[in-house]
């Protein structure tokens, strides 16, 4: 679908915990056409400072609207967190390519789907898990500590097998979520049944996932995050190096194949 720029009404904007917030806005059209992995460009203010929109990935959709999960990390997201239900929000979306995911026609028991999330990387993977729940995906969620683990309830409610990893061991596996992924792959080989990996999280995590998936010959799709000026392919600011030259995270991505990226 073509992207839209609309001024729409905020349905809710609530703090989840710590600096994590849920914002839901009205737009059946964006919701109905969005694909997991796509994002929204949000203008948080009417003025010129901050100037640019903030790209935020689509977390969930329903008939009436789109839900975003965001972390307050700077002035832009701080202003966003001060918005109230009923306030108007200027959004452009859906943007980006989104994940290529298995459709229901594939036999559910034929493929092992593994979702790997680091920190805020859970946001688009909840939307993806919803679409592919018939495959009972295995979800690995990593965070620094227990308090930063997000969306475990959502993944469980979708029937996913969830394993948590924390750097400090305060919850679940002690260590990096990518170490957990390695351990799991050492037990399950793609020779037994095809494995597909989908990942979203910080750059070092995505780099490790790409390495692990390439070493094990497993296809992986990684959702990247970059500073963007426009979000729809015009400025050429958010490029990343790939084997086919620079590509725009906003338009050619944010989802890339693990094997096409150069780290």
């Amino acid at each position, binding site marked *: 679908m073509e992207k839209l*720029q609309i001024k729409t009404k905020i349905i809710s904007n609530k703090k989840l915990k710590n600096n994590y917030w849920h914002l839901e806005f009205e737009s059946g059209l964006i919701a109905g056409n969005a694909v997991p992995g796509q994002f929204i460009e949000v203008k948080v203010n009417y003025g010129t400072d901050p100037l640019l929109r903030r790209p935020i990935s689509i977390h969930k959709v329903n008939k009436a609207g789109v839900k975003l999960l965001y972390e307050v990390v700077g002035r832009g997201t701080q202003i966003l967190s001060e918005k109230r239900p009923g306030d108007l929000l200027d959004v*452009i979306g859906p943007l980006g390519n989104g994940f290529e995911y298995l459709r229901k026609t594939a036999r559910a028991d034929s493929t092992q789907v593994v979702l790997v999330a680091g920190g805020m990387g859970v946001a688009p993977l909840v939307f993806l898990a919803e679409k592919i729940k018939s495959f009972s995906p295995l979800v690995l969620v990593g965070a620094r500590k227990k308090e930063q683990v997000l969306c475990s309830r959502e993944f469980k409610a979708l029937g996913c097998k969830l394993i948590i990893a924390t750097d400090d061991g305060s919850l679940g596996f002690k260590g990096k979520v990518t170490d957990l992924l390695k351990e799991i792959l050492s037990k399950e080989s793609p020779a037994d049944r095809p494995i597909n990996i989908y990942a979203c999280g910080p750059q070092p995590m995505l780099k490790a996932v790409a390495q692990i998936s390439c070493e094990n010959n497993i296809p992986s799709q990684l959702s990247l995050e970059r*500073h*963007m000026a*426009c979000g729809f392919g*015009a*400025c*050429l*600011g958010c*490029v990343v190096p790939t084997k086919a030259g620079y590509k725009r995270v906003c338009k050619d991505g944010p989802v890339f194949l693990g094997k096409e990226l150069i780290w």
Partner: protein
Amino acid sequence: MVKNIKPDISVNIGNLDLKNPVMVASGTFGYAEEFKGLIDLKKLGAIVTKTITVKPRPGNLPPRTCETPSGMLNSIGLENPGIGVFIREKLPFLKKLGIPVIVSIAAEDSPEEFSVLVSQLDKMAVVSAIELNISCPNLQKDKLISQDPEETFALVSGVRKLTNKCLITKLSPNVTSISEIALAAQEAGSNAVALINTLTGMSIDIYKRAPRIGSWVGGLSGPAIRPVAVKMVWEVYNKIKIPIIGMGGIMDTESAMEFIIAGATAVSVGTANFLNPKASLEIISGLRQYMADNNIANLSNITGRLQACKD
């Protein structure tokens, strides 16, 4: 009393007729395809393409943009597919729009490249005008052509012999006297000047103690530079006779009007396209409204009509 004025906002830039004076600035609008679905492209006065070079250019090391107070820095480095791919793959879409297409061009190593590009574009009927980008700050050059009046004169007069199409020279604000450069462009036969390109700038991440863009320095754009741009348009307007295309932080009708009153015949919307793709169309209708409200029949009645400050 309500007068039924239908304001005329059409303008001429050399032999180029524009139905309205609002264009989109080079480097902020891709090749227009990127804005499909977001705005009605046919309503624009003109489109200035992302700058094209002879050979494809991969562009500069990322990160290439960062936000600054009421502005942004960029160092894209003229990433483009080269003239051949541009003509084959990008120009057909622009042609379909039926509005004036201004192709921005630049040289990487030698000014001769401008001649190669102009000769090729001269043959293309769809190309309404050529913008000479002699002011890109992101090519790691010690000196830009637009920082030297003699080099500017030599370059413009050289390509002037190759085409009858409208030539627009894009000027850098990173100079001691911009009107001196504008005069050189005029004398060399440029049909118009476009100003300003970005101001060079730098932004530092104090936690990493590192520059926030990959090439360390970049070009500053957005509302932060508007007063600099308006002043330069006014200064140049008082020195030259050819039309000025004014730009630098135009966000809305009010800021576009500043440039017109300062002396710009047309304006270009740049950075605003990134955050409000509708900005240029909002300005077109805003200009009409301003003129109707103020009983101004023709845009030329206000162009450069700056009055002394009254308390």
